[in-house]
């Protein structure tokens, strides 16, 4: 058959036809000429004659154009941009976009499949980006926050490298001698009892020095902030309220300035209110009070609060580090004991402090979301490949009528981008729903949760990701653009293009999808195993859902001496025990994993004589009778502390099994041994009991060595705020907590109760980060699995459709249907098997990074790998079975007719 396209193109080229329309016209007229040619041949004309006659009927070159010119479609508006060379870029682009939209409106199923798949991928990525952005990247809400620096030290503590903060010695020496900061400010989290303004309550508070709020660059919404005079020990107490607390407690009253409340039983004057935007990183607070560090303490190194500084405008972080390094010798002169810690400056932007150590987890989650996106792109690329086969003819026509490869590639890419952007828009909808869910399930340890959301920067990210994804899946069909073949313009041309190379690309895509899904499934599987392992760890308490804990502070105003203070606590304990349904009550300085991490040095008598450096650094707590039995931590050896021990000031101590094993090898060996806190003329205390291990630093951490001193002691560690644990089957019952509150207030109505929670809540919170990562990874892996199954399905369905005729012939020739099925199953499972092998390699690489999140399971855990492989094989069977069933039901006659 002659090629008419060149002749038609020649006649139409002077008209300003829309390229797509021109292609249509050429296609239609070519068919006409084909038919005419056939007709002439049928009447006995030679090919040359037939071609000459048909072309003759096409008439003079000008004729067609002359007849067409009056038509509206020949007057397509010119998009010529003045100065643009040759064709018009913008005009072409607009044409491509319109053409793409028109094309897809005629293929709604294809467009919907692509948009939905991309929406899942882009939505997942956008949601995770909004977390990374809100938590890790978004600047803090302080003016020029990039100049705010957190100051720490790298030091040595008990021959362990440790990050160390500040005490009066470092704070005063640095503030007096530094040359690179506008100012320094100290701060520390605390909580205080507020009375005299309604029901007594304990609220989270922030103690700051006079420089801290100016360093942050904050101005008061009302009143003023702390003056240097107010930041001196012994000066009258002043108070600054956060905006939220001011609204909640004082109804936003403007005359709150100058009012007086009791803070821990001491009168304090309210001097200011913070702006609503104030949020101190990782330290939610209701009120701020002066830290009042004592210059008299600056002579010896101690560490108990944090310091921030604002760099001078022209100063870099490195210069500030050099500055601190210069000051450290001055510090060691002023406070000789500082030399003992071998301090080195450790300064970094406050934003890094704000994002805490969850950064690693979030980046891993972000990376997994990226993998989901790549899988989605692979799926879409596959869909595009199938589609591009169906339109070889159209592409060939467009090539022949003069659309160069570049022009055509651009048209194809425009199609990808139109769909990519639609996918991005869908993704934003998914992401908005996703982030709403995320904010709900985010662990308390995730800082800056309130800043997670879809904002302009996130939208910009989505736009970029959508364009990137468009290129990713759009380039594959473009790369398949061959040289223009007039073969594909002819009859039957549509089916003639499914070459083996094309199938190879589709196989590779399916294998890649399976491999990536494998990686994500392994990662989420390992997190599930971690979570299970953590659940099996004994934290140091049993039946935590039946133990209510609450904190009661007995402010100094209520007692004359420590003995009196402890007697009030004893009385509270008795009242709590009398509440109906309460089985037992314990009192202690802290319960396992409640966040109290008070570490102190002590000496062991059996290791004496000993130089200064051989003290050990372990957790100190105090306990009263019944604490261990109430939380359910059994005595391993010896006995519990009794009230007699406490009030007769017996020098006895209970330690945990981990510490006993560490010091003496065995719990029983520990009994009768003596220890004492590090320091001058402290008395020795005898170990009278050893209790079971406590995972005080978290379920995924080793058991913590703890020393429990009696509630009253002569080592200077007699806190007035104690935690009550109350074991009862009534925990969780409505009104139970209220009865407990009232039991406390029956001793004194001004006693503030705080931190009311069950041991189970404490345990859940300690698992929150792991649970969060697990849920997020499982969602990502689920989406990945779904997309991979669709990917395998589409390849098998495609191959099955391609081979319909072959299958028909085989069946006609007597092949067993079972054999035909097995053939396709082998194909599907083969793809999956290769995907799994590649995935194992990928997982081995990724899990090494992941191992920081894991507990109690190896990154190469065989059970997980096997289970995931089984899941994928099952999914592949499912994905293969549907097209296979269709293929094996082929009617040989129909199959052979279809393409015959």
């Amino acid at each position, binding site marked *: 058959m002659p090629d008419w396209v060149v002749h038609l193109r020649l006649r139409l080229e002077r008209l300003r036809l829309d390229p797509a329309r021109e292609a249509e016209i050429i296609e239609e007229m070519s*068919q006409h000429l084909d038919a005419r040619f056939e007709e002439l041949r049928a009447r006995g004309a030679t090919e040359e004659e037939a071609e000459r006659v048909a072309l003759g009927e096409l008439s003079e070159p000008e004729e067609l154009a002359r007849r067409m010119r009056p038509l509206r479609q020949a007057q397509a508006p010119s998009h010529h941009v003045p100065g643009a060379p040759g064709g018009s870029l913008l005009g072409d682009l607009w044409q491509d976009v319109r053409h793409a939209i028109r094309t897809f409106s005629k293929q709604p199923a294809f467009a919907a499949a692509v948009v939905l798949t991309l929406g899942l991928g882009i939505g997942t990525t956008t949601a995770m980006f909004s977390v990374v952005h809100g938590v890790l990247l978004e600047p803090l809400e302080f003016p020029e926050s990039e100049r705010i620096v957190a100051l720490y030290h790298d030091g040595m503590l008990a021959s362990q490298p440790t990050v160390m903060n500040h005490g009066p010695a470092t704070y005063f020496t640095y503030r007096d001698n530094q040359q690179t900061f506008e100012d320094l400010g100290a701060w520390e989290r605390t909580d205080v009892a507020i009375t005299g303004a309604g029901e007594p309550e304990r609220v989270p508070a922030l103690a700051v020095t006079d420089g801290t709020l100016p360093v942050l660059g904050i101005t008061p919404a009302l009143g003023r902030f702390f003056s240097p005079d107010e930041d001196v020990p012994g000066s009258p107490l002043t108070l600054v309220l956060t905006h939220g607390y001011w609204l909640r407690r004082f109804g936003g009253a403007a005359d709150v300035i100058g009012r007086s409340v009791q803070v821990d039983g001491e009168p304090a004057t309210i001097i200011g209110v913070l702006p609503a935007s104030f949020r101190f990183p990782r330290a939610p607070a209701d009120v701020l009070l002066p830290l009042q560090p004592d210059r008299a303490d600056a002579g010896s190194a101690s560490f108990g609060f944090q310091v921030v500084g604002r760099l001078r405008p022209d100063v870099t972080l490195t210069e500030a580090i050099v500055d601190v390094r210069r000051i450290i010798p001055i510090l060691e002169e002023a406070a000789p004991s500082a030399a003992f810690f071998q301090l080195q400056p450790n300064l970094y932007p406050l934003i890094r402090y704000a994002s805490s150590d969850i950064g690693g987890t979030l980046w891993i989650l972000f990376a997994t979301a990226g993998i989901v996106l790549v899988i989605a792109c692979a799926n879409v690329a596959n869909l595009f490949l199938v589609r591009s086969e169906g339109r070889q003819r159209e592409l060939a026509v467009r090539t022949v009528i003069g659309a160069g490869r570049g022009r055509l590639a651009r048209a194809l890419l425009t199609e990808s981008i139109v769909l990519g952007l639609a996918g991005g828009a869908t993704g934003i909808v998914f992401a908005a729903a996703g982030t709403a869910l995320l904010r709900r399930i985010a662990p308390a340890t995730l800082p800056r949760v309130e800043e997670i959301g879809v904002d302009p920067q996130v939208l910009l990210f989505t736009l970029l990701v959508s364009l990137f994804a468009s290129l990713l899946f759009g380039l594959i069909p473009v790369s398949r653009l061959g040289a223009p073949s007039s073969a594909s313009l002819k009859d039957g041309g549509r089916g003639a293009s499914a070459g083996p190379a094309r199938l190879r690309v589709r196989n590779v895509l399916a294998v890649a999808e399976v491999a990536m899904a494998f990686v994500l499934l392994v990662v989420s599987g390992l997190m599930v195993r971690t979570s299970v392992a953590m659940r099996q760890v004994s934290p140091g308490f049993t039946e935590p859902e039946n133990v209510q804990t609450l904190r009661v502070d007995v402010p100094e105003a209520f007692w004359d001496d420590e003995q009196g203070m402890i007697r009030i606590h004893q009385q509270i304990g008795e009242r709590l025990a009398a509440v109906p349904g309460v089985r037992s009550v314990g009192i202690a300085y802290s319960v396992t994993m409640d966040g109290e991490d008070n570490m102190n040095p002590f000496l062991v008598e059996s290791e004496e004589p000993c130089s200064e450096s051989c003290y050990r650094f372990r957790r100190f707590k105090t306990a009263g009778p019944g604490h261990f039995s109430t939380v359910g931590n059994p005595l391993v050896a010896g006995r519990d502390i009794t009230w007699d021990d406490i009030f007769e000031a017996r020098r006895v101590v209970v330690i945990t099994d981990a510490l006993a094993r560490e010091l003496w090898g065995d719990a029983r060996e520990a009994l009768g041994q003596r220890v004492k806190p590090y320091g001058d003329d402290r008395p020795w205390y005898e170990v009278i009991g050893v209790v079971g291990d406590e995972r005080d630093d978290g379920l995924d951490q080793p058991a913590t060595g703890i020393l429990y001193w009696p509630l009253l002691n002569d080592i200077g560690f007699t806190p007035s705020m104690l935690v009550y644990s109350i074991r009862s089957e009534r925990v969780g019952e409505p009104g139970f907590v209220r009865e407990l509150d009232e039991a406390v207030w029956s001793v004194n109505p001004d006693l503030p109760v705080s931190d009311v929670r069950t041991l189970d809540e404490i345990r859940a919170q300690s698992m929150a980060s792991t649970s969060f990562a697990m849920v997020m990874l499982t969602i990502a892996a689920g989406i990945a699995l779904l997309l991979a199954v669709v990917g395998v399905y589409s390849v098998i369905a495609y191959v099955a459709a391609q081979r319909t005729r072959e299958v028909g012939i085989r069946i006609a020739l007597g092949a067993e249907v079972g054999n035909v099925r097995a053939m396709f199953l082998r194909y599907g499972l083969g793809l999956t098997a290769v995907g799994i092998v590649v995935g194992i390699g990928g997982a081995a690489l990724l899990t090494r990074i992941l191992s920081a999140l894991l507990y109690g399971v190896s990154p190469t855990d065989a059970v997980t790998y096997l289970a995931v492989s089984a899941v994928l094989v099952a999914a592949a069977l499912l994905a293969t079975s549907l097209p296979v069933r269709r293929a094996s039901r082929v009617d040989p006659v129909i199959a052979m007719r279809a393409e015959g």
Partner: protein
Amino acid sequence: MVMPPIDRVLDRELKKGSAELMVLSIIGNGSRHGYEIAKLIESRSHGELRFHVASLYPLLYRLEERGWLQGRWVEKAGERRRRFYTLTAEGRRELARQRNAWKAFVRSMSLVTGVDHA
């Protein structure tokens, strides 16, 4: 669409009008693709009237632009797609109008020329 008065149609584009009428009449009996239309006109005129590519398609496109025809690509399994033309409602009204005009014209011609048209 507002049509010009019949006398002006007659006056101006007699030939074109007759071509339009032929195409509309052919399609009035059911949707056809371009080659079929050409062949039907040829066979019904016993080979007297012929439309070639260069005359037929510009005419079809013009009628389509006027909203009298609608062209649609139709795919059938195992065949390449073809563009079929169907009369729109407007096209149907136009066909009736042109038929009447043609009848009036033929009547006038036979009265004037004394040639009796069958």
